[in-house]
């Protein structure tokens, strides 16, 4: 039996239109991207939450996702279904940050 090769993988950062939203946590692995986005009060539409209705279809600006269950809905190359995937690397989504719980921005003062 071959031993698994250990590859260091940086925890992905999820962005909304370029603004950082969160650092993906390993404890979140069991949960889908959609659930995490909802926790952060990101406005996103969803229905079946199992990958077959396509309601949560979201555009990816950069990055990629890994599917936990295979999606059935029609997807363009730059789209993902958050209800059945997790981020694979840093991920920038075409979603508005309006109303979302964005992390506080610290003002650094020098001098």
């Amino acid at each position, binding site marked *: 039996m071959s031993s698994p090769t250990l590859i260091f993988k940086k925890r992905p950062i999820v962005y909304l239109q370029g603004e950082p939203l969160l650092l993906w946590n390993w404890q979140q692995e069991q949960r889908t991207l959609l659930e995490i986005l909802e926790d952060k009060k990101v406005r996103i539409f969803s229905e*079946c939450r199992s990958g077959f209705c396509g309601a949560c279809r979201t555009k990816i600006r950069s990055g990629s996702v890994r599917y936990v269950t295979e999606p059935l*809905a029609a997807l363009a190359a730059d789209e993902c279904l958050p209800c059945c995937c997790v981020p694979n690397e840093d991920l920038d989504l075409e979603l508005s940050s309006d109303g979302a719980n964005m992390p506080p921005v610290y003002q650094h003062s020098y001098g």
Partner: protein
Amino acid sequence: MAYSIFCQTPNDATREPMFFGQAVNVARYDQQKYEVFEKLIEKQLSFFWRPEEVDVSRDKIDFASLPEHEKHIFLSNLKYQTLLDSIQGRSPNVAFLPLVSLPELETWIETWSFSETIHSRSYTHIIRNIVNNPSEVFDDIVVNTEILKRAGDIANYYDRLINMTQYYHLHGEGTLSFNGEEVTVTLRELKKALYLCMMSVNALEAIRFYVSFACSFAFAERKLMEGNAKIIRLIARDEALHLNSTQHIINLMQAGRDDPEMGEITKECEQEAYDIFYRAAEQEKAWAQYLFRDGSMIGLNEAILCHYVEYITNERMKSVNLAVPYQERSNPLPWMKNWLESDSVQVAPQEVEVSSYLVGQIDSAVDENEFSDFDL
């Protein structure tokens, strides 16, 4: 151009377009042009359910205690849904099967239509349970002007496609007079009729159904008519799959790789497609007004329901690459999500009537590591 149920010319179905190629001869699924239709079939089969599995006896008591205006809301929705599924239970078969040229798509259409007949059966199950004389409900469907207004618009696109297909199969392309009317049939016009019909079906499954769903779930949020809500939940799950399939078909048509002429037609018809959705949404808003004419129900009124129609219309139109007609807003009925969610957890099915209990599902994936502590 006569249609044959088994065309004897050998062909490679993977080189045919979705529609208007050589009619399907051998129903074979070992090679597929679009695997997604096979997956849709499998999903739909795994969803199989029967209305009798859901106990609706409690609903009779609930229904009797509803005030008159809520009875009107409940029954009107059931009538409207009965109409929608009466159409959907036969029309994909009648309209699309004579035109389809891929075996997997042909079977998907049949599977899709069949599941709609289950929905029709479930309305009888519900209605028989809550009223003493089901005929009073069913007979009203074809005389109720509010319902007929919508039926005309839905059936029109189907009827036009079916009529043109019949002319085409009988006479081929050309102009002919029928019942004193001049009809010009060309393959291009026929493709256009198919595209618009597909758009109208998508609007039906993506918007029209959801007004009734919202009302059914609003009753259940108050712990009323819960048996009905369980059935509607199963229907909603099927409809989500169906609307996904028509979105797939529309997206493939629009991309133009499947049939370049169809790709051109989709661009020409953008405004007409937009109008189909817009008209459907406005009709549903008028329907909401009819539902609540004698009063609102707790948790739902005409204004909220109209906002919901506008909200989902925008979402659905984005999915088929159309401009959105209404102002963007947040979801006015956030609790709908809980009812539309096809729960991924399988609870012991003998304990509750879970809508997610899948029939015929086996996960045979075994990781090599499972045998790591296994010695012979």
